């Protein structure tokens, strides 16, 4: 069984049953390759190319056309019967260290371009993430990533916004979906996650506090959600002050100014305590006092003489 490594060029990959070389679900992820010094078949006729299967089964890192991979021989599923081996491939070689693609063609078409796949399009400004000591990172081709990192030393390493607080080594997990827009620097420059610029993020912190974090909005409607529980405008606190008293069924707001966010939250907390309807009549004061009903049996019996409770009010 041949087990030595060989560098080959990926020409195509089987990803679904529309591929002419599809041989069942077990063939998904199989590449069609050419030796490194062999040209791409004319008219992209891949019908006769040799194949290689992914070496790893629980980490899927599928190459695109014209990326370079190592292949090696290993047993087939019928090895015990016939001692046959077949080729397996390792993840693409990081020739350009570009997260988006590392295609390395040796033939260009009449337009000076080369094939990356059926629909894959290169995104030139996708940058690699800047690593820190001990980091483990997964970077997608499209600016999405997972960093299993920690609080670093901002005085020694390039500063990041999660290492100004906490202890060295405090874990942080950053899941980023989409890279912030970058129009400067070199294509191979490393970047850091940008919570304000990345499309969306999840930061699982331990003791860190992110610097310069600007929430896009605290209001769900700003995300275009079709909700009925919120309206476009948030309430206002008169004079931007928290009123001294919160009425049981009152949110201390009025629709003309926006209060500080913490005040809004306080209001929300208050009102959420008191959303049970009907209590006032149903469970407390089952009474209606009219002005001419001077003998209401709900008037306290122990009225002190020092106070004139017969005084009209209003």
């Amino acid at each position: 069984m041949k087990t030595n490594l060989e560098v080959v060029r990926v020409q195509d990959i089987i990803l679904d049953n529309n591929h002419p070389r599809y041989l069942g679900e077990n063939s998904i992820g199989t590449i069609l390759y050419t030796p490194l010094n062999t040209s791409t078949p004319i008219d992209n006729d891949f019908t006769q190319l040799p194949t290689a299967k992914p070496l790893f089964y629980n980490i899927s890192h599928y190459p695109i056309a014209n990326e370079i991979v190592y292949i090696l021989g290993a047993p087939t599923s019928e090895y015990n019967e016939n001692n046959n081996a077949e080729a397996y491939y390792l993840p693409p070689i990081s020739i350009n260290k570009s997260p988006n693609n590392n295609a390395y063609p040796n033939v260009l078409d009449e337009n000076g371009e080369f094939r990356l796949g059926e629909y894959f399009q290169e995104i030139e400004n996708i940058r690699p993430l800047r690593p820190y000591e001990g980091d483990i990172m997964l970077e997608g081709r499209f600016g999405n990533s997972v960093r299993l990192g920690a609080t670093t030393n901002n005085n020694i390493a390039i500063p990041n916004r999660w290492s100004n607080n906490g202890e060295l080594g405090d874990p942080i997990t950053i899941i980023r979906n989409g890279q912030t827009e970058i129009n400067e620097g070199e294509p191979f420059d490393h970047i850091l996650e940008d919570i304000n610029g990345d499309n969306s993020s999840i930061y699982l912190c331990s003791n860190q506090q992110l610097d310069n974090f600007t929430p896009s909005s605290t209001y769900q409607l700003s995300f275009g959600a079709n909700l009925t529980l919120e309206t476009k405008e948030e309430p206002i606190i008169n004079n931007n002050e928290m009123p001294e008293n919160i009425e049981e069924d009152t949110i201390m707001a009025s629709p003309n100014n926006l209060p500080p966010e913490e005040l809004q939250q306080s209001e929300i907390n208050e009102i959420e305590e008191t959303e049970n309807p009907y209590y006032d009549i149903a469970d407390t004061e089952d009474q209606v006092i009219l002005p001419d009903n001077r003998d209401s049996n709900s008037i306290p019996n122990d009225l002190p003489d020092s106070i004139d409770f017969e005084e009209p009010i209003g």
Partner: protein
Amino acid sequence: MAQFLYKQLIASKLAKNQGISNIPGVDVDSDPILTEQYIKNNLQLLFSKCVSPLMAAFPEEIGITSAYRCKALNASIKPIPGVKNSLHTKGQAVDLISISRPSSELWNWCYNNLSDYYQIIWEYPELGVFKPGKKTSWIHISYKEDKNIKLNSVASKLENLHKELISENTYRKGNYTHGINLADENLI
């Protein structure tokens, strides 16, 4: 014009049933501002600025369900207590009904005619017009001499009512929509 007496503004069947002394000034030990005089002054302001004009507009119509509530009474409200610093505990809020008219009429009158108030709430209009022994819609009026923000609200469990009231000027939270400008019975 008929007027409410001071003793009627502290009347509470619940307090009597629970042995709570709902006398203004009983909370002064825990909150020095809550003197009898302070509460009475607040009630005078609330009634002279809000309730009396309303009563003049709707003679022999207006009844009180709850005005002053001492802290113990406020905390005894079930199934959940009133908010700790309820304006009722300061004599700055009152709950009113009309004995024959929809609560919307009272709310709209207040909205259109009162020059100062802290908040008016059209409370659960789906409960309908007053009938003895029946849950009834009411309005809540509060007045604070120094902070009358004129907040106009409706409380309801009717989701469609809240949906109809959504606008750039309203704010919805739970059973409440704030910033409304009309108590519209057609929404019920």
